[in-house]
């Protein structure tokens, strides 16, 4: 239910994002993100504070990695959310940084299978 609401918000956000960005910036934003720069931005810009240093989530923010939302939904959400997560506009989080952050989250390896962790048996 919550997830559905988020996706609606994300789509709306994505639409707004594409509507207002001019073509060159959109192209740049679509360029491959850089994982290392993304990790640095994730730390610098404060995503880690609520989502954990690996995007694993916790009591404040949900898990956002591995397997983050696809970029349009991801960026739409980050730009326009107005709930417990505050929005990050392009003014404080440039498009390229957001791209890089997404690349970093994409790069987070899958969690080990629970069955392979003795402590969780």
């Amino acid at each position: 239910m919550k997830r559905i609401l988020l996706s609606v918000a994300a789509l709306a956000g994505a639409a707004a994002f594409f509507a207002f960005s001019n073509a060159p910036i959109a192209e740049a934003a679509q360029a491959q993100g850089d994982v290392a720069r993304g990790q640095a931005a994730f730390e610098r810009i404060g995503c880690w504070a609520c989502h954990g240093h690996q995007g694993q989530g916790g009591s404040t923010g949900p898990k956002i990695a591995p397997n983050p939302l696809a970029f349009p939904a991801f960026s739409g959400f980050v730009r326009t959310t107005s709930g417990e997560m505050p929005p990050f506009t392009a003014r404080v989080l440039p498009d390229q940084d957001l791209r890089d952050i997404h690349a970093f989250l994409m790069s987070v390896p899958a969690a080990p299978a629970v069955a392979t962790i003795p402590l969780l048996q």
Partner: protein
Amino acid sequence: MSGSDKQPRIERRQFLKGAAAAGPALAAASLVSPQAAQAAQTPAGAAAPATMAVREQHPPGTGQPLAPGYVVGGDHMTDCLRALDIEYVASCPGSTFRGFQESIINYGGNKKPEFLTALHEDSSVHFAMGYAKITGKPMAAMIHGVVGVQHASMAIYNAFGDQVPVYIIAGNLLSEWGRRPGAEAAHSSTDQAQMVRDYIKWDEQPTTLRDFSNAAARCYEAAVSGAPGPVMLTADADMQEEAIHEDHKADLRLPKIGRRIPASADSGTVQELATMLCNAENPVLSLDRYGNNDKSIPLMVELAEALQAPVIDTRGRMNFPNRHPLNVSDIGGPYLRNADVVLAVEPRDLFGMVMALDDEDVRTPRPRIGQNTKVVRLGISHTSQKPNYGGSQRYAPADLDIQADAQGTMPALIEAVKRMAKPNFAARGERIANQTKNLLERAKAEAAYGWDASPISTARLCAEIWDQIKNEEYTVPTETNFLSSWPQRLWVMDKYYNFLGRSGGWGVGYNSAAAIGAALANKPHGRVTVALAGDGDFMMAPGVIWTAAHHQIPILFVIHNNRGYHQETMHLQRMANRRNRAVTTADIGTTIKDPNMDFAMMAKSMGVYSEGPVSNPVDLRPAIQRALAVVKRGEPAVLDIVAQPR
């Protein structure tokens, strides 16, 4: 001295044989030598004053022992504490209670009560909170006049908010006559309880020794009756040091504590409630300050099973077994929304139970319950509320408000529900069990994310600890929400002492200190106490681990070191974002790094076994193992774990 001044002085000593005889004799008495005072006590000296302030009787430096046959006020006060079954006095010393302290040690033999050295008054009160949550009994916190009260005030506020009985004894120097300029004057007050009166249940400042036991008893009764809480008994220093002849000790009666039976609801009301619950299609039990002793949980399990109703534990206490199939605490939202009857059990704040407010730009209360949900409040936890401080949120009405002790009402309610139980309850229970059966698996799957991360994930930290204590009787005396509640999600918690709820007033500094008091209470039971304290919380009162070392209180003290007041980092981040400006500065004023704290070194400096910083998860297991070995020897051990923020 004016005539009106004189009256109370006579009154103060009136109970002593012959003392009422004459004011002039009293006035003289304060000037006579010890020898003369002794002579006055011979049978022939019937009209002579029986006592005088010890400080007058024994001027400093004379080395004059207490005259034979005399005891002092502090001795009587010690007897009073013993009569009230108070085992410990947690205290950072102060001269306003030196007479009392000396009595506890040399008259009472430092046994029941025994002195517990604290390094801050706030810690003394928090120790008492942790101890009371395990034992159900108040510990005394003895605090210095004025300044001690000021230091202790936040912890007192926590105790009030959390409804924990704490017996605060504050020193004071009531009489201006004998106060020395400087500290003694500064640490005296006409009405020092006024500083904390908004968040204590009762206070007394007896003005004669004869009144002391009465005041002590009333404070005690207030602390433990109804919704429990802190009380303050001011013990005047003159009175502590005042000498009394043995012959007159009998006039000083001791307080007596009888059996207390909490108020339970009458049979008609119980029947009405049982009918509501049994006729409901979707009843929900929501529990707050309920689980206080070893009977609480078994009774609630019986009720929930009789109804086959879902249970939400809001974790104000340990209220319901975390792995019970009817425990829906982590998925409670839909149950509340669909409920036709919610039984709110011992809620301190009913509003918070039935309404939510998110931290959003525009704040709109969001009902957690449905439009037609009937709310029944069963309990007395809201009855100690006072104006001024916002311990409970907005007013929320209950459709039926049963002002009776929930646990006391439980046996009759269970009986009534069992009599009316319907065959379709079982199907409801199965549906709930179906929804809860995967919670543990889900938690484990989530715990796997960031499993090998450094800083160490809070899930990994909690799983590693659990692996080594799972066969022990244990207590987590600290809040767990900053650890994403992993203990509740991964461990087995089913005893009231497995978890002790929260601080009550959200005052940071509670966790580390309350943990020590809980560990002290656990010591005779051989339970392992595992504190999971934030680095910020710990730095509010790091001296608490010295107290643990000094008094050989075993505790595994794990510091969740996220190098900051992380809660505030997130707040600052939100503010910057909402204002759409520099979002990279949330660490300013909120982090505790540059330089990093070395908690292990700090612990060592206080004689406490310690390891850390541990930031590689593979180092956790051996570190915990070694620390637990120390704890098993009866000592504290500190682990500094550099961990993820939540």
